[in-house]
Each structure stands twice: as structure tokens, then as C-alpha cells.
């Protein structure tokens, strides 16, 4: 799930900015408004880089300097009325450090960026934001596409979405007539497509958010159910894996969908030897699809109604820990189970799937959401200290994400014990392949459960801000509006958990839908339009980008035929 933390990242950045109080006339404060700290004068101690050629500053410039200096004393720092507009101040390459003796030093490196994050931190933040719960569906996706096809598709999708992300980052620079320093990608869409662009980007953003929240609900019900079952079985010393197809092992791998071939949650089919009414009662009240989703309502609905979720953003670190633990778990299991790979190119066998399958679009759908960061990449890259390294850092981050997905996907797929079980058994949530008594996956489920419980209110807040903010103009019109919205979202989650808890399916549908706009269509279309306006549009570029748009459309349409 790509938008586990990316939306919350966006939230975090803007929240942090509001809290900083800019001091007057100090070049080093972290104000998001670059104009208010134009370096037309700099204290000598802040000179970082000094040229040896000393030049006299012109009279006009020094008069302007004094003027700006004086005007800035007349108003509060937040007042924009007397801040020098762009057309009046010389361009950044003409800015000098002016010392009172009339000599001037030109600053070597003056860039638009004012961020203080090193490349490493930026790369980590991008990786962290992209890593989400869609990682649980990657092995299933590889299974659906075939091993070879799966690996190729993961790499190619990574490259394609990286290129589209690069287009998103560059889209702002094509607009020269306005000050775009505070713009995010939806603002760029609004500039090019008017209010249609604004509303459609809102709609698609909401699709991704609500899709994410539904998947979260399904997963949370799943994890809560398994946790409860583990605790119950642990207390009552029950071993329940005998009835399900599994390997003969101390730490078995199970195939929950073996009997009915399709329904992933059949925990109600677990039959116990002991005729224990207590157990049957428990089983009646603790059911993955019938009761647990409803218990979650009592837990999460109150959390959704909070006005400000900044409390929850403190738990951001749980996401990273969860992913790292998953990597550790997968490595351990792979070492324990060994590799089971056989290559059959086109025909399926009893235990293996062919290398090339025609259901690979299901994998591309999942990957569209797994590589999705396009609506907040601009904000993430803004804080990069060396802006000229933006493209390089972005590429490195995407490469790391691809490697992580490949690692987990390939290891889970390859180490899945195929002689007793068929590769077809790999679940849409690969943790489902471990019984609830497995200790490692129990710990993983607990981590993920807590992490999702803290991110769920953040996602709800983002959905609320975007929807209510645009429709009613106020992000908290009244408790009644907010409650209705939350009930709708929670209701969607609960009904999906009850009737269609296939997270792979939900991820690929919502991924393909919102990816259509933000990943494929908007960046390419904006690039084509801006090139056309500058009359630099060539046939190869046009064809290539139209091809990307067609790919996006095909991605979405084909999801419905699979």
C-alpha cells in the first residue's frame, strides 16, 4: 500500500511548517515563504562561500537595499504588503552580499532550495513513505503474473513510475509566469486544467485514500482476528492447523484456500476434534468476516473524529519497524524453508505456475499503488539540501523500493514449499499463509496492527480535509458532517471486510484508478501541453507520452476483465 505514510508525510510537513515562528530579518529561519527572506542583505557571519573578485555594488542596487531594509522594519514579518515583489528584486544570480564599505561579494551557490535534509535523509523519507501494506500483496502478484514475468514487470513498472514521477517534479518548472514555490502537484493540475483539474485531482486523491482505508480495515480485521485466535489457542492449548492443508513442520505453512479454491477467509471452516462448546462459542463470536470487523468500529470510529491527528503522526516510526521486521521474517523463513523453484514456461503444473501468465495486469495494478508517491513528491523533495541532486535521489529511492519489493516478493515466492503445497496457494496477504500459531507472524501482525491503527486516523483526517475542505470550505463544519463522513468510510471498510476481503483486488482496482490520473495521464498531458505552449513539441515526444497515457488507461480497463 503506497499511501500508508505518504499522505501523512504531506500532513507532517505542512504541520511542522506552521509551528515554526520566523524571526524577523534572519536569513536562517525555516520559513516556507522564500520571498520574505530574500538575501538582499546578509550578516557577514552568514557568508558561506566567497568569491575572490570584489566588485562595487551599483548605486541603484544599494539604494534598493536600503529601501528594502527600511520597509522591512515597518511591518510585522507576516505582513506581505511591503515585501519586495519578484520583478523588483534582481534575480538570484545577481545577488550580492553587500558590506557597508561598498564592496560586494557574490555568493557562489544560491539555489531555490532552502531545505536542510541531506540526500540520505531525503532518500530514506521517500522510501519510507512509499513502503506500505501493498508489500503484503507482492508475492501474490508475482504468482498471478508468473515468476519471470513478475520480476520483469516489477522492474519495468518501477522505471515507468519513476519517469512519471520525474515529470511531476519537473512540471512546476515549466510554469514561468507565476510564483510556484508553494505549489503541490494538484495546484499544477489546477493551473493547466482549471477547476476540472482541481476537482478531478481531488476525486482521484480521494479514491486512493478511501481505497487505502478500506484495505486497512480488511487487514486490521484480519490481524486482529489472528491475534485473538493466537491468544485463545495459546491459553487453551489448541492446535488447529490439522484441518487445513499445510506442510509437516514445526512451523508450518498453510494453504487456507485449498478446499474451496477461491474464498480466502474460511476460518469458520476450521473443525475441531474436541467437541468443545466453549471453543465453538468463541468461534461464533470471533469470526474474521462476521464479527471482528464490527468490533473494530468501537475502537476506530472515535479516533476518526479527532480534530487534529498530530498525536498519531508521532507513531510514524512503527511503519519502518514493521517493514524491517517483515524483511527479517521473510529472510528467516526462506532460510528455514529453502528454495523451491521450477521453471515451466507456459503450462501450469500441479504445484507450480507457468513463468508467463496472462493475469500479469493484476500485478501492474498492485504496483501502481505500490509505487505511488506522485501527489506529495514535490513536498518531499523541497527539503532536499542540494536541489540539483533531486533527480538522482529520486532514482536511488525508487531503486531501493524496487529492490525491497523484489526481495520480499521473490523470497516469499521462491521459498514457498511447493511439493506439498501449490504455488497457487500464495495468499493476497502473504501473512495469511502462516497459521495464527506461528510466533514470528504473530509478532509481525501485532506490529502491523498497531501501525495501521495509528495511520488510519491520519488517512481519515486527510480524506476529511480534502473532501470537506473543498465541498464546504471548512475542514470541520460540524461534528454531524464529520460523523456522517466517517460512518460512510467505516461502513465501506466493514462491508468490504465482510463480503470481499481480497486486499489484492481492492489494491489493484484503487491503484489503477488513482494511478490513472496522477501517474499516467496528468504528468504526461501537462508535459505535452507545456511543450506545445513553448512550441518545443516533437513527434517522438508526443507519441511516447500518448503511449504512456494509453498504458495507464489499459491498466485500468484490463483490471475489470481479470
Amino acid at each position: 500500500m503506497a499511501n500508508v505514510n505518504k499522505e501523512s508525510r504531506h500532513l507532517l510537513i505542512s504541520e511542522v511548517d506552521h509551528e515554526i515562528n520566523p524571526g524577523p530579518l534572519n536569513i536562517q529561519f525555516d520559513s516556507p515563504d522564500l520571498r520574505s527572506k530574500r538575501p538582499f542583505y546578509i550578516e557577514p557571519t552568514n557568508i558561506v562561500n566567497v568569491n575572490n573578485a570584489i566588485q562595487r555594488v551599483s548605486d541603484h542596487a544599494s539604494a534598493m537595499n536600503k529601501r528594502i531594509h527600511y520597509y522591512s522594519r515597518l511591518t510585522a514579518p507576516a505582513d506581505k504588503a511591503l515585501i519586495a515583489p519578484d520583478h523588483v528584486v534582481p534575480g538570484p544570480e545577481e545577488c550580492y552580499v553587500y558590506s557597508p564599505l561598498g564592496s560586494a561579494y557574490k555568493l557562489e551557490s544560491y539555489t531555490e532550495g532552502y531545505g536542510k535534509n541531506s540526500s540520505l535523509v531525503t532518500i530514506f523519507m521517500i522510501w519510507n513513505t512509499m513502503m506500505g501494506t501493498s508489500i503484503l500483496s507482492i508475492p501474490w502478484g508475482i504468482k498471478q503474473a508468473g515468476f519471470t514475468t513478475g520480476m520483469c514487470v516489477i522492474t519495468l513498472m518501477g522505471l515507468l513510475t519513476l519517469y512519471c514521477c520525474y515529470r511531476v517534479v519537473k512540471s512546476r518548472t515549466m510554469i514561468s509566469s507565476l510564483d510556484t514555490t508553494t505549489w503541490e502537484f494538484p495546484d499544477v493540475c489546477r493551473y493547466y486544467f482549471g477547476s476540472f483539474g482541481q476537482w478531478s485531482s481531488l476525486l482521484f486523491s480521494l479514491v486512493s485514500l478511501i481505497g487505502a482505508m478500506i484495505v486497512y480495515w480488511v487487514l486490521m480485521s484480519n490481524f486482529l482476528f489472528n491475534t485473538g485466535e493466537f491468544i485463545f489457542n495459546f491459553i487453551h492449548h489448541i492446535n488447529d492447523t490439522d484441518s487445513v492443508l499445510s506442510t509437516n513442520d514445526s512451523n508450518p505453512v498453510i494453504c487456507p484456500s485449498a478446499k474451496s479454491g477461491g474464498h480466502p477467509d474460511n476460518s469458520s471452516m476450521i473443525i475441531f476434534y474436541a467437541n468443545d462448546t466453549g471453543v465453538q462459542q468463541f468461534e461464533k463470536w470471533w469470526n474474521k468476516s462476521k464479527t471482528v470487523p464490527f468490533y473494530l468500529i468501537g475502537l476506530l470510529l472515535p479516533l476518526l473524529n479527532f480534530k487534529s491527528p498530530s498525536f498519531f503522526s508521532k507513531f510514524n516510526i512503527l511503519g519502518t519497524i514493521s517493514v524491517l521486521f517483515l524483511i527479517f521474517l521473510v529472510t528467516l523463513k526462506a532460510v528455514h524453508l529453502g528454495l523451491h523453484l521450477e521453471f515451466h514456461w507456459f503450462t501450469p503444473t500441479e504445484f507450480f505456475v507457468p513463468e508467463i501468465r496472462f493475469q500479469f495486469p493484476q500485478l501492474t495494478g498492485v504496483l501502481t499503488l505500490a509505487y505511488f508517491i506522485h501527489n506529495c513528491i514535490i513536498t518531499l523533495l523541497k527539503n532536499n539540501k542540494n536541489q540539483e541532486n533531486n533527480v538522482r535521489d529520486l532514482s536511488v529511492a525508487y531503486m531501493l523500493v524496487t529492490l525491497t519489493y523484489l526481495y520480499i516478493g521473490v523470497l516469499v515466492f521462491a521459498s514457498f514449499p511447493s511439493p506439498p503445497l501449490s504455488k497457487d496457494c500464495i495468499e493476497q496477504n502473504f501473512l495469511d499463509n502462516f497459521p495464527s500459531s506461528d510466533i514470528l507472524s504473530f509478532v509481525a501482525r501485532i506490529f502491523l496492527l498497531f501501525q495501521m491503527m495509528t495511520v488510519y486516523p491520519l488517512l481519515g483526517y486527510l480524506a476529511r480535509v480534502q473532501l470537506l475542505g473543498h465541498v464546504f470550505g471548512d475542514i470541520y463544519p460540524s461534528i454531524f458532517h464529520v460523523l456522517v463522513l466517517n460512518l460512510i468510510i467505516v461502513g465501506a471498510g466493514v462491508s468490504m471486510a465482510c463480503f470481499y476481503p481480497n486486499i489484492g483486488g481492492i489494491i489493484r482496482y484503487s491503484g489503477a484508478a488513482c494511478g490513472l490520473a496522477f501517474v499516467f495521464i496528468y504528468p504526461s498531458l501537462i508535459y505535452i501541453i507545456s511543450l506545445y505552449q513553448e512550441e518545443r513539441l516533437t513527434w517522438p515526444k508526443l507519441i511516447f507520452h500518448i503511449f504512456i497515457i494509453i498504458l495507464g488507461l489499459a491498466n485500468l480497463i484490463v483490471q475489470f476483465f481479470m
Partner: protein
Amino acid sequence: MPNTAMKKKVLLMGKSGSGKTSMRSIIFANYIARDTRRLGATIDVEHSHVRFLGNLVLNLWDCGGQDTFMENYFTSQRDNIFRNVEVLIYVFDVESRELEKDMHYYQSCLEAILQNSPDAKIFCLVHKMDLVQEDQRDLIFKEREEDLRRLSRPLECACFRTSIWDETLYKAWSSIVYQLIPNVQQLEMNLRNFAQIIEADEVLLFERATFLVISHYQCREQRDVHRFEKISNIIKQFKLSCSKLAASFQSMEVRNSNFAAFIDIFTSNTYVMVVMSDPSIPSAATLINIRNARKHFEKLERVDGPKHSLLMR
């Protein structure tokens, strides 16, 4: 018999949002304590204690704004507002899309002036010129000036083009102040004599509240044409800092191996700045000269006193 006790007004008028409050803040070194854009119309009546040139009081009015409340108040107070006006400064926003309306409001102000203070001097400022492309500025300003001159008849108006982002604002206001001083030629002649006597390189006479240059004498070409505005901005900024400590600025001496400059209170309404390029002359000598000259110039002001309410102590 002139009523010298009654305050004479300088009216600063114009459409809401045309830049009057910023202009006043910059010229008079007033701290703007609020976001001028957010609060909309400025209602600035008796609370403006900004005075200059002796007993002139600056009044700011929004004229022709969208606010009907303001319009009604304005219309009902018309006679009050336009009585006893010495100077009308009308600010036009060069970017305004409603030229007809602007002219209409300007004309109605002129009618009121004709009725209540027919002797008032009228100045029109075409403001925010920095938003116009450089090669078009002269053209657009000439066009507007012609229109305004035509509309103002039988009254005479002087037009300036201004922008707070270059020296034109300061120059325009300096010209306005220059025209308001009755005996300015005599002042200049005396200033020249004074400068030559004390062997100064340059002598400037500033208005006390705004540090607008009233008159100056220089014995040779100076390199920096923007020096007046720069000095004014520097001193105003220094005054702001002083006022934060509840101190008031009185005088300053700046000296290095090349020159010595003295800024001191001169008459009740002016400051003087004397620049000596011969550093061997001791400060005490120059200060004595300034002190003696002060008496002379005060007498000059008092001579014309009863006839004009300007420069009255």
C-alpha cells in the same frame, strides 16, 4: 484674519487598495501594525496625529471603494472632510480596471474642494508604476497626466508617477513639500551662502517628520543620485529603532578619514545635514557654525510667519 490655531489638512485620498497606507507608512515611518490588505478600507479620521511642515495634519481617506457604508459616511461627512484643506494628494492605481469610475470619484472630490477649500493645492500620484513594463511607463503616465489635467480644470493639478519600489515616491513627495514652502527660493539662497561660508561640500535641509529633502546645495557633482532617499531611509530606520527604546533622535556625527557629516536639528520644522570633505576642520567649529546658522534660519521662518500658516512654530 487667518485662524492659525486651526489645523490645516493634507488629504491623502484614493481608492481602497491603491497604496495609501503603505505610502504613509513609508514616508512618515509609521509602523503598520496590521495587514493592510485584510482589513480593507482605511477609516482614518482624527486619530492621525501625523503632522508635518509645522501644523499640517495628514488625513487618509478611502474614496470610491466598494463599501457602501464607507460611501455613506463619506458623503455625509463631506463638508467636514474637505474644509480647511491645504493640500489634496490623490492616489491612482495604475493597474485599476475601472478608469471611468476612478475619474468620476476624483472629480467629485474636486467639486468638494472647489466648494470648501478653493485655495488647496492638488497633486495626483499615478502609483504602482513598477507593475507596468519599463518601456511603456512614460507613455502610460503621459496619457494619464493629460486626462487628469483636463479633468481638473479650472483647478490646477501637478502629476507624478510613483512606486514604492524605486526613488520616484520619495522624489514626488519631496517635490510636493518643495511646492508647499512659501519662501523656498530665499531659503535656497541662504542655504548656499551658509554652505559656502562654512566650506561644506554639501548641505541638505530635511523636513523634520519625513526627512524629505526640502532644499540642498552641493558645490560639486556627486556620484550617487539616490543619496537623498538612502539617507532618509537610513535615518528613519534609526528613528524607529530609537523609538523602541523610548529615545528620540536628535543629532548624529559620522566621521572618517575622508569626510565628516553632521545631522542635526535645525529649525522647528527642519533638520540639516552638513557634509565636510576636509576632515581637518574640527567638529566643534562646524557645530558652532550650525548653531549660529540656526538662529538666522529661524528668523527667516518667523518673518513670513503670520501670512502663512506653514512653517509656524
